């Protein structure tokens, strides 16, 4: 601070400010990021953020990897809903290659993405509960997330970092047991979600803790590049699933819930409402799952079946070409976005026709909107700052890429 910048009175106030380190590893931040808070008693005066603690240079690594090897990197962005990242990346590459997928692939993807959205929102919303002192809901809904992860395990073999599906579809179709598991989930989940809502939504303590906490206006939220539930809570009905429908989202009937205040309570309510909508979409997709092959017939990006690789010449050649990345990639650039768990997850690919992307940029929603955090918590209590952070659904992996 420069000398003589403030009057003596202001100086005296500033002298009484304390500096508080929130993070990097603080249990309430749910991830590794640091906030240096300037506090006046228990009131937050200012915050300075430090990010990048788990930066892993994904964009640089991607410039050395062939197209199908990059999906595993996207797992580690928003690890609460990695299937959305995987499928979002696959859609971007398919757009670059000009591949059209059939309805069955689209519907399978929609089911997976909506399940992932439920898992993501469940974590975020129940963690708001934890940070306001209600651990019960968190442990209760964990059981449901477990069922979603079981479905993912059935489909791709992994639970958290899923690497689900392939470029151009899926390596295999859903097993009948998987479809049964999804149907069971649709049947059992509404009861749990309703109970969870009953626990928090009209709970006086919870409402007192969250209403008018960490608010942001629609105008500021748009200027700060908010997207996803956080933007919708502020009253802007922008959803990539509707504005730029991908993967046949225009076949489904669902609404975009919005809030009005843009505060923690609205963000919570928007996510709750979205989970009901996701459930509606999954139900429609499972009931109307079309027939068809689970992968497209494009040899450039889809590995041929193994038994053909061992017995026929052409599939053997294509197998090698795909694995070594020696396929003809179109020259061009695409921007493709999906509605991720916490906002517009974009993939900007520049291809020069080589075996790897020339440039791959991830538009990571929480990296962009987390910069509004100091503005949102200024003037509030420390405990409000903590629930504001958990209600923004900031995932360290996505923040730092």
């Amino acid at each position, binding site marked *: 601070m420069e000398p003589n910048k403030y009057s003596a009175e202001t100086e005296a106030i500033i002298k009484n400010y304390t500096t508080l380190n929130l993070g990097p590893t603080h249990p309430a931040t749910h991830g590794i990021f640091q906030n240096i808070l300037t506090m006046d008693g228990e009131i937050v005066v200012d915050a300075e953020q430090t990010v990048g603690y788990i930066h892993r240079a994904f964009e*640089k690594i991607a*410039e050395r990897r062939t197209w199908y090897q990059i999906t595993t990197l996207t797992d580690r962005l928003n690890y609460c809903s990695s299937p959305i990242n995987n499928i979002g990346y696959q859609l971007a590459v398919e757009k670059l290659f000009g591949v059209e997928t059939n309805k069955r692939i689209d519907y399978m993807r929609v089911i997976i993405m909506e399940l992932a959205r439920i898992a993501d929102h469940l974590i975020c919303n129940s963690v708001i509960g934890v940070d306001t002192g209600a651990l019960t809901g968190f442990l209760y809904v964990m059981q449901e997330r477990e069922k979603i992860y079981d479905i993912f395990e059935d489909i791709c073999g992994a639970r958290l970092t899923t690497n689900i599906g392939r470029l151009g579809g899926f390596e295999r179709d859903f097993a009948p047991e998987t479809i049964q598991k999804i149907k069971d989930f649709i049947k059992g989940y509404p009861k749990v979600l309703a109970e969870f809502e009953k626990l928090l939504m009209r709970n006086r303590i919870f409402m007192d803790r969250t209403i008018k906490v960490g608010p942001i206006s629609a105008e500021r939220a*748009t*200027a*700060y*590049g908010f997207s996803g539930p956080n933007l919708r809570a502020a009253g802007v009905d922008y959803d990539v699933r509707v504005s730029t429908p991908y993967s046949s989202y225009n076949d489904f009937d669902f609404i975009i819930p919005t809030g009005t205040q843009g505060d923690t309570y609205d963000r919570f309510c928007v996510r709750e409402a979205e989970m009901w909508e996701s459930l509606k979409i999954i139900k429609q997709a499972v009931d109307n799952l079309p027939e068809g092959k689970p992968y497209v017939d494009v040899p450039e990006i889809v590995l041929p079946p193994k038994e053909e690789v061992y017995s026929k010449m052409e599939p053997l050649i294509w197998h090698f070409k795909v694995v070594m990345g020696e396929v003809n990639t179109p020259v061009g650039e695409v921007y493709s976005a999906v509605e991720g768990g916490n906002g517009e997850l974009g993939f*900007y690919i520049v291809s020069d026709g080589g075996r790897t992307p020339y440039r791959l940029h991830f*538009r990571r929603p929480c990296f*962009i909107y987390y*910069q509004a955090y100091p503005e949102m918590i200024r003037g509030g209590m420390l405990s409000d700052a903590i629930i504001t952070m958990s209600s923004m659904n900031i995932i360290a992996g996505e923040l730092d890429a």
Partner: protein
Amino acid sequence: MLQKDDIISKLKETFASAILAVEDPDGIATFTIASESIIPVTQFLREQLGFNFLTDLCGIHYPDQELPLGVIYHLHNFQENVRVRLKAFVPGENPSIATATDLFPAANWMERETFDFYGIIFEGHPNLKRILNVEYMDYYPMRKEYPLEDPTRHDKEDQFFGR
């Protein structure tokens, strides 16, 4: 309805000399803008054509070009649901471009990230320092002259399939 062609003709009308190229690679109108005019163009798009959302801002490096470093902006108009992409290229020596933080607060960290990885200086940025990398790093890692692999390693050389 604001159509892609309207945007192209309106921009060409207003900034005839600043627009160096117009393309349409993936359904998004893409303009290459002279780097000194990037802020007037962005401001025009924001204030006259309603592009009020900065979707993305990132850097790119083409070492063989005369102006090797580039900044790429993606803007979105929510009401009309159209996107545009702007590109501005700057020289490799002392690369600098005006900041967009006055128009879009969201540009703050995205510009810091671009500075961090490509070394592009955003003139007038309120807090231009590294964001994801450590502060004592003395190079810009996303530039193409920094290969990912250790250049002294020869065990990974692939003379048949390598690029």
